[in-house]
């Protein structure tokens, strides 16, 4: 039963995904290219490049892409739901617990330390996005402008800022 297999496989991939999209490329490659032979290595690279440059979380985009390739729209749906399923359950459980133990001493200590690590993870994300997506200096310059606008104009909708950056990108890149 292909659909069930797709579902279980993407459940597995979803749970391994940690700290955002880029981390899952090697895992996904190992599973769908080397082990299951669902897509060729070259197709995989192509899918990654599209998943990176289209809206939506990268891992989810890839799940939809591979699922569609295997079994049409139903495959895409099953793969995407599978990818989301376990993280949703785990996070829901943690959220239910977290809102009840907010005043707990150990939880507070945990949280205040984790926030520091998350700062470093954010720096890493900025570094990885710029390194992976920017081919010359122009995007860096645009990113700097976006940074200044984001910090200076607190009322300005960040989504409009992204759209403007995209339009500028179409002209100058």
């Amino acid at each position, binding site marked *: 039963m292909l659909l069930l297999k797709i579902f279980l496989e993407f459940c597995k991939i979803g749970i391994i995904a940690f700290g955002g999209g880029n981390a899952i490329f090697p895992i996904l490659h190992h599973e769908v290219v080397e082990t299951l032979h669902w897509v060729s290595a070259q197709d995989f690279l*192509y899918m990654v490049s599209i998943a990176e440059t289209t809206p939506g979380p990268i891992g989810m985009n890839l799940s939809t*892409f591979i699922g569609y390739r295997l079994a049409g729209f139903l495959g895409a749906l099953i793969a995407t739901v599978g990818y989301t399923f376990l993280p949703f359950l785990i996070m829901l459980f943690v959220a239910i617990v*977290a809102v009840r133990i907010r005043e707990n001493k150990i939880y507070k200590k945990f949280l205040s330390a984790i926030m520091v690590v998350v700062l470093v993870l954010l720096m890493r994300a900025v570094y990885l996005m710029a390194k992976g997506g920017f081919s010359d200096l122009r995007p860096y310059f645009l990113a700097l402008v976006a940074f200044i606008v984001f910090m200076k104009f607190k009322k300005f909708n960040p989504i409009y800022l992204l759209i403007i950056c995209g339009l500028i990108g179409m002209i100058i890149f």
Partner: protein
Amino acid sequence: MAENKISLISVLKLFSIFFYVAIFTVGGGIAMVPVLERILVEKKKYLSEKEFTEVFSVAQVLPGSLMINMATFTGYQIAGFWGAFLSCVAIMLPPLTIITLISVFYTQFIQFTLMKKLMIGILAGVVGEVAGITLKMFKKTKFDTFKIILLLLSFALIFIFKINPIYVVVIGALLGIFLGRMEE
């Protein structure tokens, strides 16, 4: 009854917020963080600054994609189970429609370089905004000796020794529980 009505409205609002944000998430779930912060904390006041940082930090350190985790936690915090559920459904819709369309028009899309330029432009914007939110969180953190050491240690482990972030998170959490202080 009144309570049911309020939660129905907040569930629908959550759905539309996450749908809207997911469309503009280019370059991974992290892109939605600055946007969500501005919408949920500053505009709609659904979450306090502190709650948002908590949601983001916990979502970041759990397995699974950041975006799913954030949608689930935020959704639950604001409107319980259905809030969590529909927020997750909302973020699945843009990839499902857009990637399916691309799969159908597979070959035509390859030559679509203008689209690529648009997306790199958006990505540049995302990088700028995420850098902004990082600076903002940095300024809000009350650093004591422990936190400064933890910051330097995590930085060295991730950038110099290239340790998998999941281990750095575990190390940070354990050090925090045993040596850290509570944030008031």
